[in-house]
């Protein structure tokens, strides 16, 4: 044995468990506002992820138990599960998770070696391949025209069967971001858009608040550093705020940008993934503000309603470069 002989390690597992715990408020909010479908999604994604993780570890000749216990596969599954529409068909969930675990994680060397955020790879593959299914979000309970009980949810997710008297349209609605984009294309004014029923709902805002709460817990536990969330949220707020000030008719308010889409989950849970992010404090600031910029640009001009996933993946590519150029000076060598 060698010094140091003692350690005070919150193990990788403990860290991952805390991150998972921090997601619970958001999951609760999701269930409250959109119904229990998300639980099925998460369960299915979790099982798929764990089975595939075990399989890949075996295949790569790695010890299965310690790696399965580290919780990283579970976290990937949950993040992906929360990013896709709650009532997505089972094969969509399985495909996304499989891509995340097998291709994005293990083919790149497994825990610690994957350059791209696995959950976001899974999400990107899905939204490119299945844009229709990926944009059918359940409408918040308050404006949905009809509701499904739990067994019909399962029926729909696994057998694509809906009760005779309900159509899919009655259950789903486009997300606020999506609606904003389409309506702006139709040259509607911001005021008119914002008075659409979807903007009267509070589900999305509560979700954002729940992610924020979980994120603050992670900050307090020192699981994530402040650099990434502050820089990401700050960049989006400043950009959208500036444009909103100049032309409020065409640019949504910064508060709207922060409370919708994947801004909050991105800021606290996705961009803060240590493996695929930079390690230096300056690098983290740069990385997250780059992601914020790209997210906003994609929201304004891209073909997809939200840009967090693509922004994260694009910034992941830059991480080695960012790290190399933001090396802090060592003790005694500062200017």
């Amino acid at each position, binding site marked *: 044995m*060698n010094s140091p002989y003692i350690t005070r390690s919150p193990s990788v597992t403990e860290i991952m468990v805390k991150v998972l715990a921090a997601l619970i408020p958001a999951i609760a909010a999701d269930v409250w506002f959109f119904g229990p479908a998300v639980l099925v999604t998460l369960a299915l994604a979790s099982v798929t992820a764990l089975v595939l993780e075990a399989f890949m570890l075996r295949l790569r000749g*790695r010890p299965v138990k310690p790696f399965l216990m580290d919780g990283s596969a579970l976290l990937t599954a949950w993040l992906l599960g929360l990013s896709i529409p709650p009532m997505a068909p089972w094969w969509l969930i399985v495909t996304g998770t499989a891509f995340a675990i097998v291709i994005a994680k293990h083919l790149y060397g497994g825990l610690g070696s994957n350059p791209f955020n696995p959950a976001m790879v899974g999400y990107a593959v899905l939204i490119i391949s299945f844009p229709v299914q990926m944009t059918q979000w359940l409408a918040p309970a308050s404006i949905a025209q009809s509701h499904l009980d739990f067994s019909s949810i399962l029926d729909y997710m696994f057998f694509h069967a809906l009760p005779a008297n309900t159509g899919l349209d009655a259950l789903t609605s486009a997300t606020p971001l999506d609606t904003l984009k389409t309506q702006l294309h139709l040259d509607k004014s911001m005021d008119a858009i914002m008075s659409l029923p979807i903007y009267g709902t509070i589900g999305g805002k509560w979700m954002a608040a729940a992610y924020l709460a979980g994120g603050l817990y992670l900050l307090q536990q020192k699981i994530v550093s402040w650099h990434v969330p502050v820089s990401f949220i700050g960049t989006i707020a400043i950009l959208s705020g500036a444009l909103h000030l100049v032309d409020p008719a065409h640019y949504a308010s910064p508060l709207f940008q922060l409370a919708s889409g994947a801004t909050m989950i991105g800021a606290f849970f996705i961009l803060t993934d240590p493996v695929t992010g930079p390690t230096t404090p300056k690098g983290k600031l740069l990385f997250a503000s780059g992601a914020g910029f790209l997210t906003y640009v994609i929201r304004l001009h891209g073909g997809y309603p939200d840009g967090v996933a693509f922004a994260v993946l694009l910034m992941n590519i830059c991480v080695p470069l960012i790290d190399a150029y933001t090396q802090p000076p060592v003790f005694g060598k500062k200017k």
Partner: protein
Amino acid sequence: MLDAIIVMSGLALFLGGVLGYASIRFHVQGNALVEKIDAILPQTQCAQCGFPGCRPYAEAIAEGRADINQCPPGGEANIHKLADLLGVEFKPLNAEHGEPKPKSVAYIDENTCIGCTLCLQACPVDAISGAPKQMHTIIAQECTGCELCIPPCPVDCIVMVPVESSIANWKWKPPMKEVA
């Protein structure tokens, strides 16, 4: 179609030109290359490579007269370095030239030595001190372990002694448990 062909061949020509220029511009001068190779070779001067010393071998490699895997004292580590320097594939050590051995130094049994000076003439680095008809000694710090002094000795009084590990040359080992 035609456009594409023209563009592609134009590009090929251009890149070929750049590469050609680069190889002339950045060509390593013959002598500089010999120096670089020589700097990698272990300087044991044992001639096992088939050349009368490290520098002649370095020259032979630079001129393409010899392969990079002929130096046993340097071992595979040095072949890797040479392969990197010259931009060629690594090859395992050519066993014809011998096997790498743990570093040793020669030791003269001073009771048997008759002072014939033959070993002194064989030593490539003048690491043996002595005068005719006097017993000879090896200056251990300067002996490279080439073993060239052993065959000339008429009374077989030189032996190779492996260099013992001591606190001064001891090295930390990498952690035993590799990351899974």
